[in-house]
């Protein structure tokens, strides 16, 4: 029996990354995205391709959102830095009582701010976890920030906000759901 067109498309349903949100930002203090985490996917990847303008030694934060509001409690995180050819260590850490995730510590004006953030289970009531690898510049050093986080609440998050301590971002962001 020959497959119909619809049956054929179902058999060939896409797997891998499916873009669910994205856009361009110009001199923006935050990147706020609502309704990007849905029941369609368990896991997500956020890609950043931006540049930072502002003061020296500024940080980038991540918080999850639900129903249009920021969740600012119960984050745990650890973020390590590697300055290429210079040094490495822990930049910041908190066990359970942070109001945000510190993604990046000490970024300088003119720095690129690229990389990816993986988010696991944001939409389910399972604890939301994440990990990231982000790249930027601190003075003359090229720096990688590697981190992970836990959100201990059982909230179903539908979005996120990436906030700069001060200054602005210009560039693009893309959010992908991971199709199974």
């Amino acid at each position, binding site marked *: 029996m020959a497959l119909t067109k619809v049956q054929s498309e179902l058999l060939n349903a896409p797997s891998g990354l499916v873009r669910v949100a994205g856009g*361009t930002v110009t001199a*923006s203090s935050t990147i706020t*995205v609502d309704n990007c985490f849905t029941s369609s996917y368990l896991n997500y990847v956020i890609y950043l391709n931006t540049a930072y303008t502002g003061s020296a030694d500024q940080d980038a934060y991540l918080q999850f959102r639900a129903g249009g509001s920021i969740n600012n409690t119960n984050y745990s995180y650890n973020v390590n830095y590697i300055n290429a050819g210079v040094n490495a*260590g*822990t930049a910041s850490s908190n066990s359970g009582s942070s109001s*945000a995730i*510190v993604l990046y510590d000490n970024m300088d004006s003119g720095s690129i701010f690229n990389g990816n953030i993986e988010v696991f289970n944001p939409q389910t009531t399972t604890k939301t976890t994440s990990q990231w690898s982000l790249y930027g510049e601190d003075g003359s050093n090229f720096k990688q920030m590697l981190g992970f986080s836990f959100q201990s609440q059982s909230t179903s998050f539908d979005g996120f906000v990436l906030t700069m*301590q001060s200054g602005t971002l210009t560039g693009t962001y893309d959010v992908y759901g991971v199709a199974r």
Partner: protein
Amino acid sequence: MIINKNGVDYTLTAQEEAEHLANIAAIQQEQQATLYKFKRAAEYPPMADYLDAIVKGDTQQQEAYIAACLAVKAKYPK
């Protein structure tokens, strides 16, 4: 202050900007409370120097190591 919300530039109202800045201030305050640990860890002299001093019985090297640690503690107080 301009933010990007769901792909659209948006200018915060005065109240929203105050909330935004309060959010950042709270995060910074939490970070500051533990920052000294990471600053100190990055600048403490290698522990191998202290062990080397013990192996050699070099009290002068031991005292120099302790002094260096105390200087780092003083540089980044709790």
